[in-house]
């Protein structure tokens, strides 16, 4: 069975270099030397906007062999539904993995949005359903439900979304959502349901995932821990009668040699030394975020204190918002790590590197061709 590779679209700017991690692409920082800020020519607006840069990345990813890209959604980002619809007609194979929380849009409306996007793209929409990860900041979004309640809500949301889409006229009377005789127009109903990537490390999340998810998505965690987690997910969802696959979202610094890769990690570490902050110290009740914060990347004095194994570095959260653990190494070593992840149960990857545009080409050209997948996993397992 083949492995799916996705890239990530940066929805709140991108850095020019991992060696100097400031969001210099896009309009999230003021214009300075070295910026590539779409929309400005010699300091004046030129008619382009940030979407023109995002479009470049999406096209680079599809040309380089990625199936599509995750489009993250946070309070400070641009919005993935808007991005997907904007790029639908100028990409050919790129699949749009839309991150959203069920509290944002009601399920029948979401079914119609997605079916229209499927029609516009020939079935290239996917969901990354976010359920936990909010805590007090959920009220910023106008959402007041408690953590475990939100998983119950996600289950109902997907019940109704799928019901109205495929089994209309559909009725359900739930705790969070209800519908009476909901359905899509026949032409929309005929489109395929999107694959659903589901995250969440809590028990409530797993229960919900087992009903509706196609892929269980995790940040990279130490391999034994991840293996146990994927094993538990597969066991639990098997028991509940639904086979789901596992996916890992991970950043990498891939270079022709390992020395160059670590030199870039070190440079990025040192360039951010003056503003150490852990991006996950915000108010959040996410279990996965707590696991990443436990690496305490911001306490390190030297970059190599953050090396927790061959080619594994927990300093990525210092370079950009997001999880701490990622892969640093030569092209061969990066491919080897991906093979190890496949061996422990990974069926799909969401990769990212900085800058997203050039690294999509680099990883697509240099790393992906070296991934041996299941063939390698047999020999790894035998070792």
């Amino acid at each position, binding site marked *: 069975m083949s492995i799916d590779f996705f890239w990530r679209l940066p929805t709140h700017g991108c850095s020019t270099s991992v060696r100097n991690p400031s969001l210099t692409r896009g309009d*999230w920082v003021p214009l300075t030397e070295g910026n590539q800020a779409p929309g400005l020519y010699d300091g004046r607006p030129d008619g382009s906007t940030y979407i023109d840069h995002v479009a470049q990345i999406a096209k680079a990813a599809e040309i380089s062999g990625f199936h599509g890209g995750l489009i993250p959604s946070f309070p400070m980002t641009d919005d993935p539904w808007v991005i997907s619809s904007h790029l639908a007609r100028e990409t050919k194979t790129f699949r749009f993995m839309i991150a959203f929380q069920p509290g944002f849009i009601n399920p029948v409306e979401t079914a119609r949005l997605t079916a229209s996007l499927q029609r516009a793209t020939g079935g290239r929409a996917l969901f990354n359903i976010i359920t936990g990860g909010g805590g007090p900041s959920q009220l910023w979004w106008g959402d007041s439900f408690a953590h475990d309640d939100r998983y119950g809500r996600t289950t109902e949301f997907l019940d109704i979304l799928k019901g109205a889409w495929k089994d209309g006229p559909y009725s359900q009377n739930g705790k969070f959502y209800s519908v009476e005789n909901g359905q899509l127009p026949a032409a929309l109903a005929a489109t395929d349901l999107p694959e659903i990537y589901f995250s969440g490390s809590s028990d409530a999340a797993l229960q919900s995932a087992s009903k509706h998810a196609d892929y269980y998505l995790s940040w990279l965690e130490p391999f034994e821990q991840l293996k146990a987690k994927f094993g538990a997910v597969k066991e639990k969802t098997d028991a509940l009668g639904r086979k789901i696959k596992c996916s890992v979202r991970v950043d990498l610094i891939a270079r022709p040699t390992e020395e160059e890769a670590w030199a870039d990690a070190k440079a990025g570490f040192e360039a951010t030394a003056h503003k150490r902050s852990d991006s996950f110290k915000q108010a959040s009740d996410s279990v996965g975020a707590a696991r990443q914060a436990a690496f305490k990347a911001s306490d390190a004095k030297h970059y190599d204190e953050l090396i927790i194994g061959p080619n594994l570095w927990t300093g990525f959260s210092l370079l950009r918002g997001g999880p701490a653990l990622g892969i640093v190494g030569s092209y061969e070593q990066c491919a080897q790590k991906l093979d190890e992840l496949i061996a422990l149960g990974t069926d799909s990857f969401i990769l990212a590197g900085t800058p997203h545009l050039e690294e999509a080409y680099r990883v697509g050209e240099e790393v992906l061709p070296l991934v041996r997948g299941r063939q390698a996993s047999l020999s790894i397992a035998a070792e």
Partner: protein
Amino acid sequence: MSLEFYWYLPTAGDGRSKAFDQLAPAKDTPNTTIRDLRRDHYTNIDYITQVARAAELAGFDGLIAPDDAAGEASWIVAGLIARDIKRPKIITEFSPGAGSAVYFAKKAVTFQRYSGNRLGWSLATSTDAATRKALGDFVADGDIARRLEEFLIVSKGVGSSDDFTFKGEFFEVLKGGFGGPLSGWQLPEISLSGDTSEALEISAGYGDVHVFELGTADLASKIARLKALTATKARTINIALKARIFAHDDLDRAALEAKRAGFENDAQTLTGDYDSLAEDLLLLGELGVDRFQLFAPHSLETAYRIGEHVLPRIRQALRKAA
């Protein structure tokens, strides 16, 4: 007087070729004597985007993606055309029952950033409870207006402040609003509609545009009432008129097309040759209409006919009068 012209995109079919439009009521059996290379490469969406571009090239000022449950999702259609359409405004029509006020405001910010502040919102909720329930919306008849008002308070609040708190019956938010490059964008222009006192009251308080339908009884007095009501709130509002339209250089042919489509002598339909339509629209402009929101079966041809023949007549007349 200046007049604007908007075109409704045919999101739920356009009464045309059954060969590619899966939303058409009856799809023809494919003609197997012709090798058809389209397979499933085309949907109604490809046609909708062509209509949008046609309306832009023909000189329309804006496009409206209607919220029709029998068709494509308005927000997706708006996004799909946004990269192709450079000048016209783009209005998405949706119900405050479709989701969170904060989230719609957030989507609007991205849209404004990418389009240069060209997004408008048209907010409306079905008055039929069964229709609403089929959309997952169980709001009571008597609460529709209050929910609309809360939706406007919250979406405008988070769109214009980065520390906005509100707790209502339908929407709430704590320290909401957008920072950094997401701040400082124009709020979408708000279109509202309806001709009840309640509808006029909300429009006076929150609307930028109020949409009446052609055939509304006592249109002139309703416009006057709404404008007066809006003035008491130290605001102004523009008036839009929504109308179906059949145009042809030959009046009889225009009438024939209207009849064929089932809209002969219809109160919400304008039918005429180019001169008479220009005259009718100018007269309506004198009644206080600022914007015409037009639609017709066979949007592509009609948008071209209106844009090439009627709009120049009107614009020339307005220039002369100025």
